[in-house]
């Protein structure tokens, strides 16, 4: 609370933002109006207030006019508040004596054709800002230490890369994966475009690295149960799902010397339960005790307790290793980290919802991910592409692009899924390479080959003999006898209908946020975009950050991305997440609640309202008064909005400040 009682001396600076503001708003008139406001000592305008000369105006004015508060009327505080706070500080004022009037994002840009209305609104906005600036006080951010550890949620290629970068930077990193193995979607792919690298070959070394890196604590088959705390000091509760099998370390901890799972597979061989393997989209069987594929990390078997009949044959087969415990229960563990990276990936759109293409109605209509497994040497057919209906080799394969993407019918997704064009080109190449004479027909709306060497790859596939038909497929029907498929479309370049009889149809299904995304974002307090992807702090300038300090994003959980973009963003997120950790401390904005003890009746209503348990009652001078634990308070003001005695003082959003803003607007600044 302010101790000095100096009369307010405010400086107002109106930004033109080129023509962004000045093209709509009469900046000169606004500046002249600002000069008439009580407490305003100086008002100025400039082309670009955020530029160095613009900021110098603020710095010089503070010194020249002995100002007590600064108002900049420009863009949004969400963009430039930090910039101008720094300038305010450089001028020798406390940085919290700065207030911003948003006359661009919420004014000139949205009232482009109403010069008069926009100018009047800008005047009011400045009046409101000046009213607050008159009452601003010196505040001091609270500095809190940062735990020297990070957490990465999701161990696909993005999560793996982020974890390796953090670990290599010397940071203890917890890598959390809900599946029994790391690898994610990339481990299901056969080749990668446009280099045609074998996906597993380039991923497996990274999978192995995260499994044995001394700075990485890998938790597979684990989910985040609860998140508490704030940047620098997150307390995270992990649910380690009952795996039914112990690792050598876990066995050693239980005193079983030389025991634990070594991946020998003796249990798998005797297990009598057969289930479809979801990693292979059900095209291959697995046992109730399983690994998805030979390269899993860690190489430890997992019991599918939903399928297990607890016959105990596996326990017997495991013998002296004593790795299997069919009575195992979920366990919980709490870890403390400074920053968090979310890399929770994506799901394929349930393309059976697009009834017209016949997925799950006709056997020979498959999705691209199923195609990846069918063409993969480690897949269910050993890499032989066969039709599901009769095992014959297809000679005509139709690829339907934008299957559910760029779809405004309400059934699909309105956005472009970004990597389907390229992997479908890759698929076309693969079938022409593996099956001589087999012709791919690619039904497309546009081919989007935006990346490095992508367009060149497109030309290559054209030259290799793939047929491209521009037009959205209307319908796919099956010939009941041959199980061949009729693909009906319009060739929009030739302007004539197409009826293609294909042996097989591959649907490049759209991608969508995973089913858990909503749960994840609520756990970590992250917003989502309209399509449900996790929302970055700024699409251009902060693509890895979120509005929750200390939580960062990597990979497709933020929006469709191919592997290079995912890895690049993961490296960016790792860099961003390591900065507070290496700095060792972060500053929290000092928007804390304070108790004006003389007004507090000790009713305790605020305590039940506080979402962070930051408030409690203490005894002072023989009566109960509210007390704030500043490290827990996040400054929402929910307590201050309700206190019946008006005893809570919300720093930087005080009741007098807000009331002064209301008065300034409605009473015209006379109060």
């Amino acid at each position, binding site marked *: 609370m302010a101790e000095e009682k100096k009369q307010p001396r405010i400086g107002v600076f109106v930004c033109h933002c080129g023509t962004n503001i000045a093209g709509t708003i009469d900046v000169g008139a606004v500046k002249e109006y600002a000069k008439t406001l009580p407490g305003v000592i100086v008002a100025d305008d400039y082309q670009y207030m955020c530029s160095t000369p613009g900021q110098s105006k603020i710095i010089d004015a503070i010194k020249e006019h002995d100002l007590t508060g600064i108002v900049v009327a420009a863009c*949004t*505080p*969400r963009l430039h508040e930090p910039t101008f706070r720094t300038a305010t500080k450089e001028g020798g004022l406390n940085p919290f004596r700065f207030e911003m009037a*948003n006359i*661009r*994002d*919420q*004014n000139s*840009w*949205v*009232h*482009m*054709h*109403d010069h008069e*209305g*926009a100018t*009047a*609104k800008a005047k*009011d*906005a400045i009046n*409101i800002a000046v009213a607050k600036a008159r009452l601003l006080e010196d505040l001091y951010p609270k500095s809190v230490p940062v735990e020297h550890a990070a957490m990465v949620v999701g161990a696909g290629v993005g999560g793996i890369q982020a974890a390796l970068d953090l670990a290599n930077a010397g940071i203890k990193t917890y890598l959390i994966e809900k599946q029994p193995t790391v690898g994610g979607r990339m481990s299901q792919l056969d080749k990668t475009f446009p280099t045609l690298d074998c996906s597993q070959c380039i991923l497996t070394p990274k999978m192995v690295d995260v499994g044995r890196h001394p700075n990485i604590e890998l938790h597979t088959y684990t989910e985040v149960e609860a998140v508490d705390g704030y940047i620098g000091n997150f307390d995270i509760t992990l649910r380690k799902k009952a795996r039914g099998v112990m690792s050598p370390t876990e066995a050693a901890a239980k005193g079983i010397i030389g025991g634990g799972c070594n991946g020998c597979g003796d249990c798998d061989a005797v297990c009598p339960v057969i289930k479809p393997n979801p990693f292979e989209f059900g095209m291959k069987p697995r046992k109730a005790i399983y690994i998805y594929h030979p390269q899993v990390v860690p190489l430890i078997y997992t019991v599918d307790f939903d399928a297990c009949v607890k016959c105990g044959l596996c326990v017997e087969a495991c013998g002296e290793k004593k790795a299997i415990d069919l009575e195992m229960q979920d366990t919980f563990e709490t870890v403390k980290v400074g920053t968090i990276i979310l890399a929770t990936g994506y799901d394929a759109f349930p393309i059976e919802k697009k009834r017209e293409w016949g997925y799950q109605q006709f056997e020979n209509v498959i999705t691209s991910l199923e195609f990846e497994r069918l063409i993969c040497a480690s897949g269910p057919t050993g890499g032989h592409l066969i039709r599901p209906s009769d095992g014959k080799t297809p000679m005509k394969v139709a690829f339907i692009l934008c299957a559910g993407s760029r779809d405004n019918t309400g059934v699909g997704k309105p956005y472009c899924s970004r990597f389907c064009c390229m992997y479908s080109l890759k698929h076309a190449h693969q079938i022409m390479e593996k099956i001589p004479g087999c012709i791919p027909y690619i039904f497309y709306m546009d081919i989007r080959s935006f990346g490095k060497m992508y367009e060149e790859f497109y030309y290559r596939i054209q030259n290799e003999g793939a047929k491209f038909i521009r037009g959205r497929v209307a319908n796919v029907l099956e010939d009941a006898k041959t199980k061949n498929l009729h693909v009906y479309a319009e060739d929009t370049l030739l302007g004539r209908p197409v009826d293609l009889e294909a042996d097989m149809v591959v649907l490049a299904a759209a991608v969508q946020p995973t089913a858990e995304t909503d749960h994840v974002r*609520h756990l970590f*307090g992250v*917003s*989502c*975009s*309209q399509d449900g992807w996790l*929302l970055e702090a700024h699409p251009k300038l902060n693509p890895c950050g979120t*509005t*929750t300090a200390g939580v960062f994003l990597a990979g497709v959980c933020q929006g469709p991305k191919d592997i290079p973009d995912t890895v690049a963003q993961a490296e960016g997120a790792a860099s961003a997440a390591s900065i507070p950790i290496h700095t060792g401390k972060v500053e929290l904005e000092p*928007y804390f609640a304070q108790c004006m003890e003389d007004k507090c009746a000790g009713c305790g209503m605020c305590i039940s*309202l506080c*979402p*962070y348990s930051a408030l409690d009652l203490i005894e002072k001078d023989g009566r109960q008064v509210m007390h704030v634990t500043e490290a827990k308070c*996040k*400054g*929402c*003001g*929910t307590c*201050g*909005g*309700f206190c019946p005695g*008006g005893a809570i003082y*919300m720093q930087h*959003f005080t*009741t007098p400040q*807000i*009331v002064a*803003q*209301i*008065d300034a*607007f*409605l*009473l015209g600044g006379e109060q």
Partner: protein
Amino acid sequence: MADEEWKPKILAIICNWCSYAGADLAGSARTQYPPDVRAIRIMCTGRVDPLFIMKAFADGADGVLVSGCHFGDCHYIAGNFKCAKRMFLMKSILKDLGIEDNRLRMTFVSASEGAKWAKVMEDVVQTVKDLGPSPLNQMKQ
């Protein structure tokens, strides 16, 4: 004065994380809406003291909008929910005072809903315009 079109005075109190960001997004998308609303930014709608609403109407506001995050999306867990309960009570108090309760409105606009913000602006301005000047302002005249 009589010939001039009456311009309503509408105050918006909006939270930093969702609605303020949504309003900014309407800006970067250049979605146009009427300029009659003046906004005050707070961190969370949980901060909205019923006093602010009363003060605004007493000062001559023709309408007040409070806008925050969607339920379940609050940056501070449930501040918007606590605010919504208060606004519900405020509406009945306003009614008792003879002020039409739809002069006070609470909306939920997320950071990705720029278009929705513009729609809310249009709706709020239209609602207040249809109602005309606040009864308190009519009394003053």
